[in-house]
């Protein structure tokens, strides 16, 4: 019986740990209700509108899932990067280059059949994102350049590249003739639209993203490469002594992380926008998905499966907020502030959770020492380390 209790206790604390983000979200909503009341709006009516807007009808649910898709894909990349001990805040730029590459493919081969172009376009997006994430990776691993700053700089470079391409080489020929010259590409051929899952706006990309989440989970926790990525993230020195080429795995983490950002861009173009456009800023095209995806991943506790509900929650907030704004007439920026509030509460709850989990971690320290033994076990004898 005693043994059973010992097993149950960590289980309960694990459940509490998993629930803290939810409780934190509720707390954030509570504070937001007070703000709404202060502004003279009825919070119950407002939240009714939010829920109604986010999941009041099949169409609303579909929209929520569509919004959640890029957040999930970006978030998966973030899980890989953070688990690998590197910080990637270049999701915006990676999404943009992925979208550009995928759009380019569709524009160059307008006559090709969809079943050829769609997979190729997703691959193109994946690869372009990998390049955009891989550059900061190489800079970090081999040239000691801070990856937080270089990924941010790469965002800006991607935005400028997008502005150039959409204003000149890739601009819609129709816009070229009209006086307005809106910087956007032509609409991609309808044959390239990602298939709809049900008769709503919900497209195949949402399903792909969920499959990707499962694959990333398997990759990180059930394959040798994923294991090494996590080992580098947990303790780079220990990994190095165990014969893991730390630099190579750092590059790989950032590269894969960027690849998922690029995939998010390709999915966004082929599933939702069907063309690329720009208002000069990154958020004009991405809607801030590159940053919100990071938040979703943190919310999902940097676990690929946990990121799924987190992404859906943020998708729902984004969709429901539109309705909320229309019904209770609050300024749109207040709604972004709601997102910010949720983030702050979730992060602070995460802080609390970690303190709670500290004792648990001490107990698990033994497991970790087993893990480093395993790392030593997997080291190849000829593994050269720089």
């Amino acid at each position, binding site marked *: 019986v005693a043994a059973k209790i010992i097993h149950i206790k960590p289980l309960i604390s694990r459940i509490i740990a998993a629930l803290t983000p939810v409780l934190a979200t509720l707390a954030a909503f509570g504070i937001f209700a007070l703000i709404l009341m202060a502004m003279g709006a009825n919070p119950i009516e407002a939240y009714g509108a939010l829920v109604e807007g986010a999941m009041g009808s099949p169409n609303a649910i579909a929209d929520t899932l569509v919004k959640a898709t890029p957040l999930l894909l970006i978030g998966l990349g973030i899980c890989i990067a953070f688990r690998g001990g590197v*910080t990637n*805040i270049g999701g915006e730029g990676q999404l943009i280059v992925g979208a550009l590459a995928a759009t380019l493919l569709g524009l160059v081969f307008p006559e090709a059949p969809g079943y050829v172009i769609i997979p190729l376009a997703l691959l193109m997006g994946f690869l372009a994102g990998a390049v955009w994430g891989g550059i900061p990776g190489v*800079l970090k691993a*081999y*040239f*000691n*350049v*801070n990856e*937080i*700053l*270089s990924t*941010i*700089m*790469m965002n*800006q*470079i991607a935005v*400028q*590249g997008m*502005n*150039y391409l959409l*204003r*000149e080489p890739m601009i819609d020929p129709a816009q070229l003739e009209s006086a307005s010259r809106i910087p956007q590409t032509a609409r991609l051929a309808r044959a390239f639209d990602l298939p709809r899952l049900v008769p709503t706006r919900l497209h195949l990309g949402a399903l792909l993203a969920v499959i990707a989440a499962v694959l990333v989970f398997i990759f990180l926790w059930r394959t040798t490469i994923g294991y090494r990525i996590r080992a580098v993230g947990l303790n780079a020195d220990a990994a190095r002594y165990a014969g893991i080429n730390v630099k190579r795995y750092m590059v790989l983490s950032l590269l894969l992380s960027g690849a998922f950002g690029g995939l998010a861009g390709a999915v966004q173009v082929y599933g939702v926008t069907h063309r690329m456009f720009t208002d000069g*800023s990154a958020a004009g095209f991405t809607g801030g998905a590159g*940053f919100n995806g*990071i*938040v979703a991943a*943190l919310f999902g506790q940097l676990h690929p499966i946990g990121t799924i509900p987190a992404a859906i929650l943020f998708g729902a907030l984004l969709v429901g907020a539109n309705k909320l704004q229309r019904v209770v007439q609050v*300024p749109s*920026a*207040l709604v*972004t*502030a709601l*997102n*910010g509030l949720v*983030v*702050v509460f979730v*992060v602070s709850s*995460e*802080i*609390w959770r*970690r*303190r709670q989990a500290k004792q648990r971690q001490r107990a698990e320290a033994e497991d970790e020492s087993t893990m480093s033994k395993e790392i030593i076990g997997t080291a190849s004898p000829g593994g050269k380390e720089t």
Partner: protein
Amino acid sequence: MNDFDQLLKTLSSIVLQSSPLIIAVCGETITERSGLINLSLDGTMLLAAMTGFAVGLKTNSLILGFLAAALVGMLFALVVAFGSIRLKQSQVAIGFVLTLLGDDLSAFLGQNFSRIPGPFVMKVGIPILKDIPILGSLFFDQDPVVYFAFLLVGLTWWFLFRTQPGLKLRGIGERPEAAFARGVKVNRMRYIYAVVGGGLVGISGAAYSLNVKLGWSEGHTRGLGWIALAIVIFGGWSPIRGAIGALLFGATKALATILQRTFPQVSVVAFNAIPWIMMIAVLLVSTSELTERFINLMPVSWRHPLRRFLRVTAPMALGTPFRED
């Protein structure tokens, strides 16, 4: 003569344009020298720029505007310090989330202050000094914010490298254990320097909205916080080098504008991308091992000055929390 005047005008506008960055770089240098990274600069500067402008407009007092902005910066820095020191959280994650929050909040709270004229700092030439040829018009015929920026550089340098508390400050960023063993309250000092640095970052935000880039609109200073963070690294965590970095950055932007006018056939975006590409290149040169190898190819007597010129090293305990037990 006319060309020369034009050049002087451009140079003095570079000095003016760089002044907020110089202030932000000094602030962040102080914070990072103590071992703490405040990554929230971009959001802090946005919210501080908005607050500074709004308060300045409502109270019709520039001083109150700058003070309010400094308070915003201090508050954000306090959150980063508290989260990192007390709650043992990732400084990077907290800083990043605060960046987003500052951006959102400034957009929301600043709606009513968007694109309206407001107060601004007036130019005050310093008598006698401003009549020095060239230097006078560059540095002494400016406004108080510019003077503050340059005074701050000198003060920060003096404090860091010539005073006892400055030595302690560097100590807790390099070897907190050693400092702690000598009786320095490492974490209390980190709180203090985070707040001081944050206050300066806040002032730099207001220096944009009240002096350099007048007024407020959504995303008014977006991106400049990241530039400041990069310049701190380029500056090797030294205020003087950091100020030079900020001036060089301003010069590059001015040069890009001139080049753009000279070569109108080249797309604008090429010039817009230059500062960012340059920042990566600069980080590459100043932190890469490759530079070390290059220096070692040089004659022995050149190596030391070259290393001082090209290479930077971070405070050893930068970004690592310290446990006082």
